[in-house]
Structure formats: structure tokens, C-alpha cells
């Protein structure tokens, strides 16, 4: 207990130190003309956030990253659930291919998968004689959803397999059928262990949406690059710090919440 207390204390000191150093740097920098840089950022902030100079309607920028991450997560949840239960299947013919797909997707660089989608998915598809254009946004969603789905599936598998085998045994001894065991006993317990993992995964996915600039969508990075072409070189660093902070401010609370949930789940069974 004492060890944990000192660790938490040290951590808080370090965090405080970093925060103070940041404030000190900004203050010092402001005396040397940094205020001007922040003023430029402030003037462009609506475009960075929404892709729109007046801030409305939402047409890109950071809002598009958020939307992209939500779409990719939804798709990953569907694919990942199927893949996850495929890996838990009794039948080898189902299980082995699912493992293969999961490992392949999980061990590919996200950027490579995005580029691959860009070139594999055609610009147009013909369906019943109607030609449908596939927007870059859809490719970005698919490209990001694939590796996320693989991680999503692995979280499901890990959580289900972390449930003590005695739970299966007790349920079988009470006459439950396999599907009912999943539905009534294993999944309700495993879900509590999955949710923090999924939240961490979502935070990672959100960070990875910055890669989607390679598909040419008007996300915050693309917007940033367009803006920077018109800006003085000295202010560039302020824009990048701002972009960094946007992602941090979005993802860090999620990670914190996930950590807290993980701790509350720990030791709750057996």
C-alpha cells in the first residue's frame, strides 16, 4: 500500500512538473513574439475544427476526424464481433481462417492498409447497370476499420477466455446449453472486461484518423497543410502544437476513463 502511495505521489509530482514547464514555456515564448503566433492559430481555429471559416456547417477539419473515427469504430465493431466469435468457434474450419485474418490485419501497418484500400477499392462500382462513385471517405473508413476490427476481435477473445473455466463447468452442470452459457453467464461477465479495451482501442483509432489525410479527405491534417501553405514559417510550430493538443484533449480523457474502469473490474470475479 505504501509503495502504491509513493508511486501515485511521484506520478502526480511529475505530471505537475510537466504542466508547470509547459506554462512557463508558453509565458516565456509569449514575451518573444509567440503571442502573434497564437493569434494566427486562434484566427484559424474554426477552420481547423470544422473545416469552415465561420465554424458552421461542419464540413471537415477535426470534426471530420471525429466522424471518421465513429464510422470506422462502428464498422470495426460489426466485423470484429464476427471475427472474435469466429476465433472462439469449436469448428476448426471457422476458427483457423479467423485467426489468420485477425493476425494478418493486426500486424499490418495502418498506413499501409489505408494505401492498399486506396488502390484496391475502385473509384466506381457498377451495380445493376448504375455506376456508383466510392468517395475517399468510405475508403478511409474501411482502411481504418480493418485493423481496428482485428484488435476489437482480439479484445473479445481475450475477455471471453479470461473467464475462469469453472464458470463453464458450473453452468454445464446446471444443464445450460452452450449458447445459453455464452448469453447468460460468460458474456455478461466478459463485457465488463471488454469495454475498457474497446475504449483504449477507440482512442488509438482516433489518433490514427490523422493518417487518413493520405486519402485526400478534408480532415484536420489536410486542412492544416492547406492553411500552412499560406502562413509564415515561424508560426507553423504553433499550428502543429494545436493539432497535437486537439487529439490529446479528445483521447486522454477516454484513456483515463478506461483505466478507471479497468481497475474497478479487477478482482471482481472469483
Amino acid at each position, binding site marked *: 500500500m505504501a509503495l502504491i502511495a509513493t508511486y501515485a505521489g511521484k506520478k502526480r509530482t511529475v505530471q505537475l512538473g510537466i504542466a508547470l514547464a509547459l506554462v512557463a514555456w508558453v509565458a516565456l515564448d509569449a514575451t518573444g513574439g509567440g503571442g502573434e503566433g497564437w493569434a494566427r492559430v486562434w484566427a484559424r481555429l474554426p477552420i481547423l475544427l470544422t473545416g469552415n471559416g465561420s465554424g458552421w456547417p461542419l464540413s471537415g477539419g477535426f470534426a471530420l476526424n471525429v466522424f471518421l473515427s465513429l464510422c470506422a469504430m462502428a464498422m470495426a465493431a460489426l466485423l470484429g464481433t464476427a471475427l472474435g466469435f469466429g476465433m472462439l468457434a469449436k469448428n476448426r474450419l471457422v476458427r483457423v481462417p479467423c485467426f489468420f485474418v485477425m493476425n494478418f490485419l493486426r500486424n499490418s501497418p495502418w498506413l499501409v492498409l489505408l494505401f492498399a484500400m486506396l488502390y484496391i477499392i475502385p473509384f466506381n462500382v457498377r451495380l445493376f447497370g448504375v455506376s456508383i462513385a466510392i468517395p475517399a471517405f468510405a475508403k478511409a473508413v474501411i482502411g481504418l476499420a480493418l485493423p481496428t476490427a482485428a484488435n476489437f476481435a482480439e479484445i473479445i477473445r481475450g475477455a471471453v477466455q479470461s473467464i475462469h473455466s469453472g*464458470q463453464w463447468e458450473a453452468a454445464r452442470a446446471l444443464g445450460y446449453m452452450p449458447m445459453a452459457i455464452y448469453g447468460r453467464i460468460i458474456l455478461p461477465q466478459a463485457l465488463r472486461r471488454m469495454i475498457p479495451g474497446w475504449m483504449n482501442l477507440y482512442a488509438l483509432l482516433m489518433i490514427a484518423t490523422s493518417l487518413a489525410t493520405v486519402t485526400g479527405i478534408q480532415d484536420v491534417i489536410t486542412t492544416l497543410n492547406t492553411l500552412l501553405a499560406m502562413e509564415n514559417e515561424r508560426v507553423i510550430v504553433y499550428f502543429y502544437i494545436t493539432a497535437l493538443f486537439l487529439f490529446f484533449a479528445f483521447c486522454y480523457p477516454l484513456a483515463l476513463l478506461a483505466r478507471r474502469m479497468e481497475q474497478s473490474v479487477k478482482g*471482481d470475479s472469483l
Partner: protein
Amino acid sequence: MNRTDALIELDQVTKSFGAFQVLKGISLAVKDGEAVCIIGPSGSGKSTILRCINGLIPINSGSIRVGTHEVHKMKTEKEMRPLRHQVSMVFQQYNLFPHRTALQNVMMAPVQVLGHDRREVEARARRLLAKVRLSEKADAYPGQLSGGQQQRVAIARALAMEPQVILFDEVTAALDPETVKEVLTAIRELVDEGLTCILVTHEMKFAREVADRVCFTDHGRIVESGPPAQIFDAPQDPRTREFLGQVL
């Protein structure tokens, strides 16, 4: 013993895990209302015998009959459902469902598996919790209960299925010495009421008091069996003598 009036009958049961033969021909007959204790060193296959009886693990050869059920012929969980209704099991590690309260743990299977009326099951569950002296803990989650309390909930859960037979697998082995007694008291009452019980136990004093018959297992065989007085006071086999010498 006349074999036909046995409720449970194992005949030359063998079981291997991979190349390792755990059961090397187990034959055992248990009459209705009888309490049989299985004792023996750890790893001798005691738990495996119990798990074979209610079909949790399939056997390699031999036959197992429980009432009219031919366990060795059953392949699917669905076929085993009537068997599981008839034979309940209590585990060393309790294995309560941690996401459900004590009362819900007791009620779940009768409602969800047997399809009994919920109100009737709730009355039964409360009666059983009272029987194991845990009425006031009905709404507690397993994590909030002591080991002995959890084990008594597990016994109530097994009883709620209204089984003909209960298998107890070292149900006191994970408990503190003080709480062992409360669990043994609950089991003793069941034996006295005439429920058929097979108990794997290390509590020799308890075995001597409640058992109609004691079986000593070693290396996958039943080495010796008989009334407790005979096994404990006049063991025939040297292995039994050695084992009892160590534990008594």
C-alpha cells in the same frame, strides 16, 4: 450388492487425457439414499470420477448409468439435460456466477433451464437459503460473501435443481478451518434427509461420521472400499494404510 437396485453404476470406466490414463477401470455402485465418500491422494482421479458421472467429461471405455440414463452413450449437451437435472454438483472453487446475487444464483437454472415458474422458484430459493442459514445474504453478490458463505450458496444452488444425487468435489478444501464446519453441517443435514451423495473429501472425521461407504482411490483405481469403520480402523491394502497414516 445387487447391481440392479443401484441408482448409480460405473462399470470398468477408463479415461485418458492424451497419453495419460487417469482412470484405469473404475467400478462403483451407489444405492438410492446412500452417502459414499471418495478419499485418496491428490491426482488419483477423484474429481475425474465425479465429472464423468454427470457427463462433464466423456469417458474412453466402460459404462456409466445414473437411474435410467446411460451416460456413456450421450453425445450432446442437449441429451444430457435430463441427467443434469437429476445430478447436481458442488465444486471446490464454488464457481458461483459473480455477476448475479446469491438469490439469483440459486434461481437462475431452475427458471432458465428447467422452465419452472419464477414465483415458485423464488419461494424455493428463499427456503433453501434459509436452510443453509443465509437468508439475510440473499441480495449479496458472491464477491461480498466469505468462502464458507459462497459454498453454502453453491449448495443451495445445487439443491434448487431438485436433484436425486449431489456430487461434492472437495467442497471444503478452499475454506478456512472455522468455516469448514458450517459447510459440513449443511451437507450432513442433506445426508440425514436421505439425499444420495457422492463426496470427495479430505475431512476424514466427517467421512467416518456421515458415509455409508468409503472408497479409497489411488492412481486411477479404487483400491479398497467398505464401511468407514473397516476402512479407517482395519484397512487391508498397504496403500490405504500408508495414506491414512499420512492424513490421520
